[in-house]
C-alpha cells in the first residue's frame, strides 16, 4: 500500500515536471515573449550568437527507427546506427502514396542515393540537425549568418519581407523576421536534390520551409520547422529538434571539407590504379 502510494506520487510528480518542461519548451515558440532571463543583444533581441548543435538521431531518420548495423561489415559496432524516436509532430510524415513508395526505395538504396554520401550541400532543414556544429552570427545590420561546419555550407538570412527567389539552389533563399522573441525564417527557392535525413525522406522543388528559433535559456534553442510541399505531402508537417549551445571552452567551427573524402568514391574508377589508394578496399558492404 505504502509502496503503491509512493510510486503513484513519484509518477505524478515526474509527470508534472515533464509537463512543466514541455510547457517551457512550447510557450515561447508561439511567438510570445520569452522569459526575461535570456541573454539579449545590444538591440534587445534574444542573443542567438554562438555555436549550436543538435543531439539525438534526427540526422539518421526523422521518424521512429530501431537500431541497426552499419553498412560496412568491418566497422562492426563503431558505425552502427542508434535507435531514435520521431521528431515529427504526430510521428509520421504525411506522404502522398507515390511519395511514400519513393521514400521506401530511397531508404533501401541509401548509399547510392543520399546526397550526403557524396558531400553535396545539405539543404534545409537538414543542415540544422546534422551531427556537426553550426554558428549563428547576429549582425548589427540587417542580416543573420548561419555557417555550418559540414561542407562549408552557409546561408545569409536577410531580415525583411520574403522575396521571390531568382533561381533554385541547394540551400534555398531565406528571409527572416522576429515574431516577439522568436526568429522566424521563411525559405523557398530549393532544388529537389536534397534529403531530410539518411533514411530517404525527401521533398520536391516546391518545398516551403518556415523555421522558428526560440531561445529558451542561454544554452537551449527550441527549433521547429514546418515543411510544406504540396507535390509530396498531403499537408504541412512540423519537426521539433532542440539545439544545444556548444559550451566547450575552445568551441569553434573547424573545417569539414568532405569533398576530398569522396573523390576516390566518385572518380576512383577514372584514374590509373596503383593499388595503394583504397585502404578499405577489402571492406565488404553488408547492405544495401
Amino acid at each position, binding site marked *: 500500500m505504502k509502496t503503491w502510494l509512493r510510486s503513484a506520487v513519484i509518477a505524478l510528480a515526474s509527470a508534472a515536471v515533464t509537463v512543466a518542461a514541455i510547457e517551457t519548451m512550447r510557450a515561447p515558440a508561439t511567438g510570445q515573449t520569452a522569459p526575461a532571463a535570456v541573454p539579449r*543583444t*545590444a*538591440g534587445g533581441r534574444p542573443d542567438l*550568437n554562438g555555436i549550436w548543435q543538435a543531439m539525438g538521431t534526427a540526422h539518421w531518420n526523422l521518424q521512429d527507427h530501431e537500431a541497426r548495423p552499419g553498412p560496412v561489415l568491418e566497422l562492426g559496432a563503431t558505425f552502427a546506427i542508434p535507435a531514435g524516436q520521431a521528431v515529427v509532430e504526430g510521428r509520421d510524415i504525411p506522404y502522398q502514396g507515390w511519395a511514400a513508395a519513393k521514400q521506401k526505395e530511397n531508404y533501401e538504396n541509401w548509399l547510392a542515393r543520399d546526397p550526403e554520401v*557524396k*558531400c*553535396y*550541400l545539405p539543404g534545409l532543414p537538414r543542415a540544422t540537425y546534422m551531427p556537426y556544429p553550426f*554558428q549563428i*552570427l*547576429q*549582425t*548589427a*545590420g540587417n*542580416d543573420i*549568418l548561419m*555557417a555550418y561546419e559540414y561542407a*562549408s*555550407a*552557409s546561408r*545569409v538570412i536577410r531580415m525583411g519581407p520574403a522575396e521571390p527567389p*531568382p*533561381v533554385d*539552389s*541547394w*540551400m534555398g533563399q531565406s528571409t527572416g523576421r522576429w515574431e516577439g522573441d522568436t526568429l522566424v525564417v521563411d525559405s523557398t527557392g530549393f532544388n529537389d*536534390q536534397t534529403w531530410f535525413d539518411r533514411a530517404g525522406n525527401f521533398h520536391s522543388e516546391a518545398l516551403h520551409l518556415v523555421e522558428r528559433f526560440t531561445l529558451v535559456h542561454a544554452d537551449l534553442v527550441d527549433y521547429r520547422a514546418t515543411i510544406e510541399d504540396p507535390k509530396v505531402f498531403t499537408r504541412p508537417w512540423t519537426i521539433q529538434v532542440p539545439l544545444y549551445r556548444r559550451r566547450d571552452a*575552445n568551441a*569553434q*567551427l*573547424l*573545417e569539414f*571539407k568532405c*569533398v*576530398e573524402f569522396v*573523390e576516390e568514391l*566518385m*572518380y576512383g574508377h*577514372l*584514374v*590509373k590504379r596503383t593499388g595503394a589508394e583504397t585502404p578499405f578496399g577489402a571492406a565488404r558492404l553488408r547492405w544495401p
Partner: protein
Amino acid sequence: MRARHRGAAVAIALALAASACQGASTGASADGWTPPRTPDGQPDLQGVWTNYTATPFEVPDERDDLALYSGDTDGTGRGTGPAAFLTDTTGRTLAKGRSLVVDPPNGRVPILPWAEEQRTFKLLHIQDHWEHHTPWERCITRGVPGGIFPTGYGSGYQILQGPGYVAIVYEMIHEARIIPTDSRPHVGSGIRLWNGDSVGRWDGDTLVVDIANYNDKGSIATNAATQRVRSIPQSQDLHVVERFTRVDENTIDYEATIEDPKVFTAPWRVAIPLHREPDYRIFEYACHEGNLAIPNTLSAGRALRVRPR
C-alpha cells in the same frame, strides 16, 4: 621615348603603391575619412564587396610560360579559365596597375625552384589524378588568402560583423570564414586546415588577421589569372597576415603578407582593393555538386592511356 614613358609609369605606380601601403599601415586615409562604426565600436566593414581588377598578379616576364600556367599546354586556346579579365561584371572602369604583388619591389613572387617544378608537373598531369588539380578545380577551396586573389567570376564577398567576430562569406565555393577578433591563440598544432586558422584583432581601424595551422595539401593560388603562382604548393609552415582597411565609403584596401620558407625565398605581399557593391547579388556557387571538370579530365586521361595519341 617609349622606355622613358614606361619608366615614368612605373615610378607613378610605385608611388601609388607606396601611398596605398602607407594608408593601410596607419589605418586612415589621407583625407582623414574615418569609417562608420558598428554599435559595439568596430570599424564597419559590412556589405557586399567585389575585387575585379585589370592589374596583373605579377609583373610579366618574357620567360613566363603563359600557356602552361593557364592549363592550355597544347596552345589551342582552350585553357582552364579566363586568364585575362579586363571586363567587370559590375560595369566599373577598371584601373590597371603594375602588379598586385607589391613586395618584393620587382613584383615577382620569390618561388623556390622545387615548388615551380612541382607546379609544372601537376599542370602537365591533370589527366592522371585529381590531386594534380588545384583545390579550386576539385571544389574544395580557393584558399586563404588565395580566395581573394581576383578572378573572372563569382567575385562577391559579403562581410558581416557581430560581437567579437568578423565573417566573410565568399561567393566562390560558398565559404563562410568566421574570424574571432579577440586575439585568441591558434588551435593546436595537431589540427591542420586547408584554409588555416584565422585569428583577428583590430589595429586602429584596420582588421589584422593572423593565419596559421595550414595543411600541406592546398595551393597558395588556384586561378589562371595568378599565372606562374597558380598551383604552387603551400606547406604546413605557411603563415599569412591579412590587413583590411576601409579607406573610404566604397573601398577596402586588402593586403596579405605571405611567408612560407619551404616554398618561397622571402615573404611577399599582395595589395588588392575591394569595391563596395551594394547592388551585387551573391548567388550560391554549388561547385562540387556539378563538377564535371574533374571526371571529364580524368576520363580523357583514361582514354589516352588506352589509345595514346
